[in-house]
């Protein structure tokens, strides 16, 4: 059996789903639970091809509800477990992940968004933002990283395991069908050789006795009274808000003097980046803002940008799901909001350029 999945670092050419499987191996994940759904299938395919070579395991469950709960079971037994899903599978996954929030069970879920609602398309969208950030019957006590390329899929999948186990909130890596199936080069590496330390897993259930005394572990997702629940959720929310600044990540450039700032996330932010660069070359005052964590959202960072800009152009492959997060984050700002919403469809840099010029023209006409 090979010792380490990745020795040193190397430049490779892969699909995004393969990247996730390799990243989970690099992060020392021990078991994947899953149920097939396009466009994330090859995460399972590659994990099942790679896993036996490195003494790792896989369980195909009967559906995503079960995949989510068995993932949590694996974690409670002390295993570094993860799962992956998409679309309607993500809908089912919200029930187990709500339990993870309530019981503070670290868990990692990779989502490759497809078109919605329901079965819709197997291809692509950014329509799982609301569900992934605030799904389930709770308060959205979770972390969501929205990736834009294969290097980030690798880096953030590894990071998600540490985030989950460090803060004990379910952690999602939110990709999409384009990232899943697209092929591009990236550098894969052994994280520990780069100095990254993994947060150790621990056995929650069936712990060995300490000095002959068995320590009870009481994890609850059921409470008897309103007050009891209120006290727990208040404490969890305080903890969440306290660690949020450590977790929040975003990228921005050219915002200092920008009249219009393009706000986008995930794969769409690649088009936005090219559009902003092109428009800058033409001499237009355009900026770029991209939340990497959609939950917690980089609200303070965006507020600063909104305070200087005249207009935020919100661009996403959904009908305003990121826009809701933005509006919540910048509440009180008087910045104008424009949008380019294309639910379930990819967005090109050309389309963003055209939209920015329309807004510019409108502003001049006033």
């Amino acid at each position, binding site marked *: 059996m090979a010792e380490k999945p990745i020795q040193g670092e190397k430049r*490779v*050419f*892969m*699909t995004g789903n393969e990247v996730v499987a390799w990243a989970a191996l690099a992060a020392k994940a021990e078991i994947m639970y899953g149920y097939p759904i396009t466009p994330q299938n090859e995460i399972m395919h590659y994990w099942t091809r790679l896993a036996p070579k490195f003494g790792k395991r896989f369980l195909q469950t009967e559906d995503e509800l079960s995949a989510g709960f068995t993932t949590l079971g694996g974690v409670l037994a002390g295993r570094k477990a993860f799962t992956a899903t998409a679309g309607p599978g993500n809908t089912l996954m919200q029930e187990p992940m709500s339990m993870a929030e309530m019981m503070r069970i670290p868990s990692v879920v990779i989502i490759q968004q497809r078109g919605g609602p329901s079965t819709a398309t197997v291809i692509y969208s950014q329509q799982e933002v609301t569900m992934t950030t605030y799904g389930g019957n709770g308060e959205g006590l979770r972390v969501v990283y929205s990736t834009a390329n294969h290097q980030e899929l690798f880096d953030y999948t590894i990071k998600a395991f540490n985030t989950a186990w460090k803060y004990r909130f379910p952690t999602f890596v939110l990709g999409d069908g384009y990232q899943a199936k697209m092929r591009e*080069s990236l550098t*894969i590496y052994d994280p520990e050789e780069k100095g990254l330390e993994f947060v150790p897993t621990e056995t929650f259930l069936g712990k060995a006795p300490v000095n002959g005394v068995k320590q009870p572990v009481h994890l609850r997702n059921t409470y008897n009274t309103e007050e009891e629940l209120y006290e727990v959720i208040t404490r969890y929310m305080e903890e969440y808000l306290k660690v949020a600044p450590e977790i929040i990540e975003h990228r921005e450039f050219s915002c200092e003097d920008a009249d219009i700032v393009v706000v986008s996330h995930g794969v769409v932010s690649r088009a936005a980046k090219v559009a902003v660069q092109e428009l800058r070359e033409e001499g237009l005052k355009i900026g770029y803002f991209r939340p990497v964590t959609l939950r917690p959202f980089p609200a303070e960072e965006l507020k600063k940008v909104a305070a200087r800009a005249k207009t935020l152009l919100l661009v996403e492959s959904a009908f305003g799901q990121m826009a809701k997060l933005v509006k919540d984050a910048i509440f009180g700002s008087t910045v104008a909001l424009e949008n380019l919403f294309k639910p379930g469809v990819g967005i090109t840099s050309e389309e963003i350029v055209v939209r920015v010029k329309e807004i510019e023209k409108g502003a001049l006409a006033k």
Partner: protein
Amino acid sequence: MFGVVPVSERIVEAYIGEYASGKSEIAVNRAVDLKKEGRHVTLVDLDLVEPFYTLRPIKRQLTETGIYVVAWETSETMGLGEAGSLIKPEMRWVLRRPGDIILDIGYGVEGAKVLNLIEGAADNKNLQVFVVLNIGRPMTDNVKDIVEYVKELGIVHGLINNSHLGDDTSVDFVQQGAKVITEAALVLGLPVIATYIDRKFEFEINSKMDIKGNPIRLLDRYMTNTFW
């Protein structure tokens, strides 16, 4: 209009290999190259796992060059990709077509089994099955893994070196691929049919042979226009 080439001299090639190894890109390039030689060429999209994605977006572009493309059209189907696997009758009988036939066969080992569904594939004397390999893919980045992988695939007549790193490709990397794949070919007792290299390196490599003496074929990138 058909029958320009006698059946005995026609080229029938199936491109198989690891998912994302470049089968479709190589198959398309091969079809275009043969068409440029004035031959009659049929290109078949035989990815039954993702039957609607591979060549569909560039079908019209290829058809305009005179290649006969057998692939699904969006308008012919419903529930893209969710409707299960299916094969066009035209695909099943495609070896009955005259002229050169280039088969793009998707999805690794399981995909290779699709040849069982093609009428006449088992006893077709012209049929050559080539495995497309890229050492930039970790599952096939060394001699041992390549040998094991190719042995899983059933009948194979040759290997194709398609080593690259997308936009980060260098001539050195392609040559490194030639070394590894030629060594694997020796172990397997198979020929290396060609090394493919992006046309942008034509003058840098400045040779008709790679470092191991395999023929070089210049590659134009079509699949960047297909999304899937």
